[in-house]
């Protein structure tokens, strides 16, 4: 909140105020400023995403011996290193949700809906979202901190002075790396979740033959599920990478601004992923 040193009407003198009010003086001003700031951020983010997309295609063959190792290291950080945690979450998802769902469905005699519910809940919704949030927490925050620190220390200007495009060097590898990582981790998580779900059901003596379980899953899955899953997870990765890179790079930062930029990036990424998820729900309903 900007400091205001101004004379206020109604004061008995023209002395400036020296204490800040804890509440906004005019609520409409406050809300209006927030909306304008949000619109500005959205506009800048869209422009940044567009620039990234153009650079990604325009310079796809340029300096690939430098950029491709960066993509691989990003896949290592956001994908391979997260396999143990993803496996753990897949196990938990399977035991906690799938196992109980199968058990309850069996109790009310509608176990033939198992496949449909698993596909809807795990394959379409929880799997991609959990993988995306995991990557955001582990890799997304690291990206903001790295790039924010680079920005604050002037490394971006140093790259420009060397004739190296900062978007091509910093952003493109992260976008590609995160998109591939979230897609792969989602497949892995879904597989682990479905297997561990059946394991839980088996331990509960649910009369569900493995072939029945997997046949139900196979019957409930369509080619659109695979296509939309691939698209959704890639977009999650792209969104998280663009938002985190934007918060780290796009605006001048000081070192002490990096923490605030990190929390902003996480919040914006979560909102963007949820909105994208909602858009895909509409697509699933239509197809």
């Amino acid at each position, binding site marked *: 909140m900007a400091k205001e040193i101004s004379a206020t009407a109604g004061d008995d003198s023209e002395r400036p105020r020296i204490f800040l009010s804890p509440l906004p003086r005019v609520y409409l001003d406050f809300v209006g400023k927030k909306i304008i700031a949000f619109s500005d951020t959205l506009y800048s983010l869209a422009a940044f995403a567009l620039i990234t997309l153009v650079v990604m295609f325009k310079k796809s063959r340029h300096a690939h011996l430098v950029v491709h190792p960066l993509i691989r290291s990003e896949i290592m950080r956001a994908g391979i290193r997260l396999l143990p945690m993803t496996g753990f979450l897949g196990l938990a998802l399977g035991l906690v949700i799938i196992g109980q769902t199968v058990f309850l469905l069996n109790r009310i005699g509608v176990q033939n809906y198992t496949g449909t519910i698993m596909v809807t809940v795990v394959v379409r919704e929880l799997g991609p979202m959990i993988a995306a949030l995991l990557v955001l927490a582990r890799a997304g925050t690291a990206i903001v901190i790295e790039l924010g620190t680079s920005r604050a*220390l002037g*490394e971006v200007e140093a790259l420009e002075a*060397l*004739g190296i*495009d900062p978007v091509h060097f910093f952003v493109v590898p992260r976008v590609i790396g995160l998109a591939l990582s979230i897609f792969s981790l989602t497949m892995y998580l879904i597989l682990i979740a479905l297997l561990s779900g059946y394991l839980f059901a088996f331990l509960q003596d649910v009369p569900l033959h493995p072939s029945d379980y997997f046949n139900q899953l196979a019957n409930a899955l369509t080619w659109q599920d695979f296509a939309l899953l691939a698209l959704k997870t890639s977009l999650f990765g792209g969104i998280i990478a663009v938002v985190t890179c934007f918060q780290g790079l796009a605006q001048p930062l000081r070192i002490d601004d990096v923490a605030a930029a990190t929390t902003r990036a996480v919040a914006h990424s979560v909102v963007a992923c949820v909105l994208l998820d909602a858009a895909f729900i509409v697509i699933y309903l239509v197809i």
Partner: protein
Amino acid sequence: MVDASISPAQSGRAAEVENVHWRIHPETFWVVGGVFGSGRSDLMATAAGLQRPARGVVKIFGDETFAIGEEMLVEHRRRIGLVFSNGGRLFNRLTIAENIALPIRYHRNWTEAEAEEPVRAILELTELLPFATQTPGMLSPNWQQRAALARALILQPEVLLLDKPLLGLDFRHQRWTLDFLSRLSAGGALYDGKKVTIVATTDNLQAWRAVGQQFALLKGKRWKELGGRAGLEASGALLNDVWADDI
């Protein structure tokens, strides 16, 4: 620069230097003096094509900086080496060798093996070979500044811009830097005898007296050319006035 006004990188602030008329001829050695806040760093950034002037025209190799396409601008930037002050803005996650190799690997699409020879040559020339596998954070500011110089030279630029290259260096590294730049200006082994055009900024013009060829001063938002070494000697009172104001 033609009638240029140099503004700070942060937009919205008033110009730091106005009415700059400056032509840098090839193979010259310019030293620009000024106190803190006089606009030296922004002058270098504008000359390198990183910043727009608030007013006027800035041309690099005959082309107006922001009127040419991105590809041409990148080509021109490759012909200019810019060394930042205060540690040179090295990339902290890369080793010294990787920092130096990055420009040549990026622009020529080389592997590390292909870049090893020229990088090793620069490391030996700048006495940085023992530090090749260390990251910038492990080095003292003296060696960081030298690594920044090495990184700027890897593409063998025709013009070398140095922003306060002696700032924070101890006496030994200052002498080395001055001697090295003098040899570059005269045509050193690195460039097969070709002379490099050098522009350096400083807060102490006298330290460059024996090395520079052309001198200029930034004072009170104005650009003043002092001429050659004779002009620098003749402007003694003016320089005393500048530093006295700073104190």
